[in-house]
């Protein structure tokens, strides 16, 4: 009877190679997961401007000290009105930039003369608290070019958004992080 052939690998080598292969497989899997997360960012909170009822809760219920919800302006549909009902109090003393005539509680809207009779309105996001007072004025009497959006340069994307729980218009929705904004592109009456 021939002697038993010598094995090509010893038990120790087998175990060592097996452990190495398992480690590499695990590392590969980990890299795959990381790569997947890097390309698919998941979902973030956003406000559907067509559902927003300007209830004021965005200003008072965000977990951040200053709300991550800001007013944004769709310039393409703005009327550049002299009597901007987003900018002015309902019954202003005069149509100028005097604080007593302006309705934004934090003076976050800037009014700039363009040419007779047009004025441009821009939002200073550092001051805007997302109260939607201007949005209501613009929607009620204007073209609806002012609207609210969650700004993702400051939103912490809570699992359960504190504003969404109290949103009176049920306007908070989850959207793909690849397309995180729901922008108006045409006036509501067009």
């Amino acid at each position, binding site marked *: 009877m021939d002697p038993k052939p010598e094995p090509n690998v010893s038990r120790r080598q087998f175990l060592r190679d097996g452990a190495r292969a398992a480690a590499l497989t695990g590392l590969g899997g980990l890299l795959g997961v990381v790569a997947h997360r890097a390309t698919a960012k998941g979902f973030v909170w956003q406000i559907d401007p*067509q559902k*927003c*009822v*300007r*209830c*004021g809760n965005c*200003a*008072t219920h965000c977990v951040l000290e200053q709300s991550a919800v800001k007013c944004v302006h769709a310039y393409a549909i703005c*009327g550049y*009105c*002299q*009597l*901007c*009902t987003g900018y002015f109090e*309902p*019954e202003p003393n005069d*149509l100028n930039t005097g604080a007593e005539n302006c*309705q934004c*509680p934090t003076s976050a809207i800037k009014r700039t003369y363009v040419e*007779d*009779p*047009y004025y441009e309105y821009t939002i200073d996001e550092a001051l805007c608290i997302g*109260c*939607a*007072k201007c949005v*209501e*004025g613009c*929607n*009620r*009497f*204007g*073209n*609806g070019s002012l609207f609210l959006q969650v700004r993702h340069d400051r939103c912490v994307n809570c699992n359960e958004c504190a504003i969404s729980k109290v949103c009176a*218009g049920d306007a908070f929705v989850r959207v793909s992080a690849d397309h995180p904004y729901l922008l108006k592109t045409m*006036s*509501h*009456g*067009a």
Partner: protein
Amino acid sequence: MKNRKQDITRRQFIKKGAQDAGLLALGSAVFAGTGRTAGAASAGADVNPFAYDVGRLRTTDPKLIQYEQVGVFRSPYPEPRRIAVGPEGRLYIAAGNYVSVVDRDGARVSEIALPRPAKCVAVAGDGTVYAGVKDHVEVFDSKGQRQAVWDSPGKKAWLSGLAVGEKDVFAADSGDRVVLRYDRSGKLLGRIGEKNKERNVPGLVLPSPYLDVKLAPDGLLRLNNTGRHRVEAYTVEGDLEFFWGKPSMAIDGFCGCCNPVGLALLPDGRYVTSEKGLPRVKIYSKEGAFECVVAGTESFSENWRKCSPSDCTTGGLDAAVGADGQIYILDMVEANVRVMARKKQA
């Protein structure tokens, strides 16, 4: 050693224990219910500290309202846009894909079918009907037979008002911010209201498509320059003669992005203006001084509601004046016509 005598029996202990547990459970339930009710009440009582409050503008000083409603009838079709008075006092309503002819009580006399939604209408003294769809004018004889289809003034055309004189037809084109002057055969004769520094014409500002035009008894045209919140008078050649009006939410002004959205003229040359946003119909003197209210915002609750939450650009009113001075108010949201007569004591 003798056992001390027990104060309560086992049965009493169990009975008392059960009573205490029941009371505890009841108390918990009541407390929880109270808390929940209080919480709900608190939530319901939340007041928006940033509310845009225009509630006080929803009512009109009764002393200013000098007309009363003497009738109302439905528009023959939904989405009415303009109303005009023709010969024999009949009303012509541009609504849906039709121009409907009705008598003063709203009974349908006839109707003219159009290929697209009717945006405006005017009627000549001989009964010829000029109907504007979005981008062109169609002409019909007094029996409703199509006589002509005029060329479109351009891709951006959005006709929103028409007026007709003895020799001319004027088409208010909101899309191109101009009033086009045609002869009765459809030949373009001129453009009115365009910005022109040499002629001192500032141009029309129209954030929404509500440009209207009327030909007054003095031979001048009246246009509503809505973005400037004023009424402007032009010669038929296009010279700006005068204007009046101011931006304001007060009763004597015009508010929002664009008002007034409709014009009509009383037999003595005074103005009837129609507005959206704050839906109201008012009368101004020939010089443009506010005189009185025909119907205030409180009369048009649906039209007001249409602007909230988000659809102001489709609301609004239009008006036409009968030979007897009665004012017909077309509500574009409720799709009805209100007949207004001056109060006897006014």
